[in-house]
Each structure stands twice: as C-alpha cells, then as structure tokens.
C-alpha cells in the first residue's frame, strides 16, 4: 500500500470513528440517562431532549475528531525528523489529548446549558471515555503516521499497523 492510499484510508478512518463515537455517545447517553434527564430539564420532553442531546454529542464529537485530525495532519505533513532529537513529539500529542479532554468536558459543561438540557456525571463520563478515550487516544494509536507510530501512550501494546 502506498503512502497516499494509507493517508486517505487514515483520514477516512478518523472521520468514520468520529461519526461512530457520536453515534455511540448518543445511543448510550440517551438510553442510560436520557429519560431521567429529560424529565429533570425544564420544558423538555424526551424527544426534544434527544434532539438537543444529539446536537451536544455532535459538537463534542466533531471537536474531538478535529483534535485527532490535527494530530494526524501535523505528524503526516508538518512534523519533520531530520535529526535524532526531532523524533517523538509526545508533548504535542499529549497537549492534543488534554485539548480533547477539555473539549469533551467543556462542550458538555458549557454547551448543554445553552441548549437548555440537563446532563449528569454519567454523560460527562461517557463523553470522556468515548470521545477522548476512543475518539482521540485509541484512534490516534491506529492512525498516527508511521514516523510517530509509538508516540501515543500505550501504542507499543498494539501490533504492527498500516
């Protein structure tokens, strides 16, 4: 497989996993805590809450996907290793991990009141695990360009990849 094909596949994978994470967060959130939270919210019924909650998961998911995409694009096209000291870039990856976590929790914290829905700790937990855990950490393990393939924490536990 040549490098261009690999790049296209990885970008597609980032997009697909991002969409998958949004769907998973929406499905799990709506089923685990949806009914309870819908009744707790003002002027809200379950279907209206779902509508707003989907907007919330979509915003958090896309922002996370953007973090994963930024890491991929930077590592693929902008970070160059022309000497031994230039390799790794884990601080950059970790900064994006923190950004991803901030986005996951921040969107839930700030955007939910704007949308007028209530959320609880389960939703925060779901967002952190699904978006940051799966949508950034796990995704970057499998999509990081090869020159930095062991940079994501724990990447060496996974076998050979594209």
């Amino acid at each position, binding site marked *: 497989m040549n490098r261009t094909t690999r790049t296209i596949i990885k970008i597609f994978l980032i997009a697909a996993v991002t969409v998958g994470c949004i769907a998973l967060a929406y499905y799990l959130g709506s089923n685990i805590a949806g009914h309870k939270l819908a009744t707790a919210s003002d002027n809200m019924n379950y279907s209206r809450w779902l509508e707003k909650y989907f907007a919330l998961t979509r915003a958090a998911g896309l922002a996370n996907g953007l973090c994963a995409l930024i890491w991929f694009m930077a590592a693929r096209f902008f970070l*160059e290793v*022309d000497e031994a000291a230039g390799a790794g870039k884990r601080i950059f990856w970790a900064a994006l991990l923190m950004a991803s976590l901030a986005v996951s929790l921040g969107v839930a914290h700030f955007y939910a009141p704007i949308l007028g829905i209530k959320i609880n700790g389960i939703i925060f937990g779901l967002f952190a695990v699904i978006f940051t855990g799966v949508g950034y950490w796990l995704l970057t393990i499998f999509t990081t*360009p*090869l*020159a930095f393939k*062991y940079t994501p924490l724990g*990447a060496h536990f996974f076998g050979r990849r594209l």
Partner: protein
Amino acid sequence: MSYYFISIGGTGAKVMESLTHICIAGLLPENERLYIAAIDPDVGNGNLERTSTALNNFAAFQNFSVGNDTPLFKNKISIARPFPWNPTGHDKNLDDLIEFYHHNNTPVGKLYEILYTKKERDTTLNEGFRGHPSIGAAVLAKKFDDGSKLTAQIEKIIGEGENVKIFLAGSVFGGTGAAGLPTIARLLKNNLADYADRISIGGALILPYFSFTPTNIKDELFARSENFLPNTKAALKYYSEKENLFDATYFIGDSVMTPVGEFSVGSANQRNEAHIVELYAALAAADFYSRPLHAPKIFKYICRHEHDKFSWSDIPVSSERFVQFARFIFAYVQLIKPVLIDLVAGDAKAYKYPWFVDFLKGVDIGAPDVVNFNFYAEAFAAWLKQLETLNGREVFLINPAMFEANPARLVDKKLFAALDGTKSKLTFHEIFYRLTEPFKFDSTIKGFGKFLRRLYDACAI
C-alpha cells in the same frame, strides 16, 4: 571464481583501503569471495594500520544477516595470513636477509658488493625498502616462497575447483611496490605455471601522484619525491621492454603531485590522506575482476573531462550504488548512531524511534559488531572527505559541502537530499519515514543486519 588482491607497499595499502570501501559498498562484480593479502616490510605503517582496521571491520560485518539479494556486504572476504607479510623480519638489513656471510669473498659476494652500496646493505629495513626497489627485488625474490605462503594458499583454492583472479597493486616509483609488482607477478606466474588456464593476473601500476618534503632527516636512506619521475621512467621502460607479466595492466597517475601533510620515513607516522588515484586503482581491480578469466589483452584509456575537476562522469563506474551507500552511511551517522548511543546510556526513549522498536528491540546494540559499525561509518565518511580534498582541485563525487562539519555530521541537513549534486526527495525525514513502513524480508535476514539492510534499502532513490 575467487578474487585475490595483493597490496604491495604503502601505496598498495592505500589502494586496499579504497578497495575495502568499494567492496563494502557492493561495487565489486558478482558475489565472489575476495582474499586480501598485503606485503609490506613496514608493518607498523599508519596507512596499513588504517586499512587493517577497515578490513577487520568488514570481516566482522559478514556476521550481519543482511540477505543475499543486496549489494551490501555481498562479497565475503578472507584475510590471507600472515597479514601483512613482512619479507624483512625485524631489525634486519640487506646483508642479513641475503645471508651475505655465506657469500663473503666469493664471486657472487663480490658482485653483490658492487651492485649495492654500503649504506643500502647496512640500513635496517623495518620501515620498508626506502624507495630503493633494487633492495626490495632481492629480498622479495629470496623470501617470497617460504615466507608469504601465498602460492600454497592459491593452489589450495584452485584445488577446490575454483579459478582465481589475482590483482596486484603498488607504486612503480617507490621502494616496495616498484620492487614487488614485477617480482611477485613473476614468482606467482612461475609457481602456478601448472594452473595457467585457471588463473589470471592483473596489476595496477601506480604512477607518481604525491610529493613530500623531508624534514629533520640527516643522511638517512629514504624515498625522495624528486626521484619519483626518474624511477617511474625506468620502471615503465622495464615494462615496455620486458615481457608484460600481467594479463591486464592498469597505469594510474596524476598530472599534479599532491603534497602529503607530514613527511615520515615510514612506521605509524606514515599516515597519508586518501587520494582519488587510489580510488581509480581500486576500481581498476573491480574492472579486472569483472572481465572473463582469459579475456584478450586490451588497452583502454580513461582520463578526466576537465583539467581541475573530477566528477562522476570521470569515474568508470555508475554513481548510483556508491551514492546510495554514501547516503546510507550519512543517514546512519546522522540519524541512527546518536540514538543508539543515547539508548545505551539510558538518555533516550525508545518510543521516539519506531525503527528501533521494530528492528532492534532485543538486539544487543552495545555488542562489538554494532560498535564496529559505528566506527566504520565514521571512517568511511572521513575517507570520502579526504578523497575530495585534493589540493585545491575540485572533486565532486559527493557534495563537498557535506564535509564542513566532522565526518558525516551535517550542519545544513538540507544538503542530504542532494548528496551527489542531483536534487532528490530523499531527505533525512524521508529516510526516517521509510524505516517505519511495512516491509517483507525472508526469515534469514535478522538482527542488526536486518536493520542495516532496511536502512540501505531506504536510501535508494
């Protein structure tokens, strides 16, 4: 088929150094074994010492499992012992070696006393024949059969069913080479006369290409560069008038005599920088080995296109393989070696270097073979740098700007992509990236050799 290379004297040793490098780079034809022999009375001379180091490194590299389908390290070598063969022994003069005391006051002894001056007879020969081929010819003829064991070794190889191509290299203007080239060629031809159809002998006769100014030498017997041209004239006359003993003869010289840095009669201080003439002589050996065993004698001329400049168009070999090897060495020194050193010292994290995790985890990177390769990589770069420092004349095989810093450590890393002056996309980052891409080798390729093979392949355009 087996190849034999016999270096004679200091210049021969320097040709051997170039041959070792081009052999490691995979520039010799076929995958035949190369036997290396050296004849030098000055066993401690610095040139020979440097060459021996490169040779011993090469011998160690043969343990690397790089596979058989690569030019890298493809020719196996054997060092013919004794290495080097010292025809004079220790603290002996000509009288001792000729056993003059047996011939004192005999007609032969009196003739000998006429042919050799008192100084020539009395000077100890620890540092070679000191530019006096007449001394060397007598000693070599007397000692070759018993001392060198070369004939027996070649006979053994022929006995195993192999044909042998023997190549001799030495200067015609100094002492050991001028004496040894015709003498050794004749002795080998005579000794191996029964196998005439199984052997071929070639020779690189190196014409003057350097000069020196003696300092602090009082009334001592040593080679003088003002004698180089008359010596050469006499030698060439000999080769044109007498039977040419070589099946292929290569005359290689330079129109400019490059001054050597510091004069030394011999010994460890005789450590001259590499010169492009020696590279030509090594390529002559490669050309000889590539010819059929009994090819008709031919006369080929090669000269450079521009008076004060050498470039790849002047070299009788494709640049591609050599440049790939140079790129491999530079990439190793720049990108790999510092990491290995830091990892051994615990100053680096392995995750940063996917090639280390993929290839070298579990490999002992402090092992002598790996350390030898580190030294060799620096030595190759240093040799290349010397080759391109030709007394003001421009040599452009590898971009000279590459050598601004210490061997192979680049100040301007962008230069790497245009190593031979031709722009390419092969940056250090590209090499680093290629090292991490999936690949398939057969299972015999393993260990540090597998990594070197991968790096070498990654350095191809």
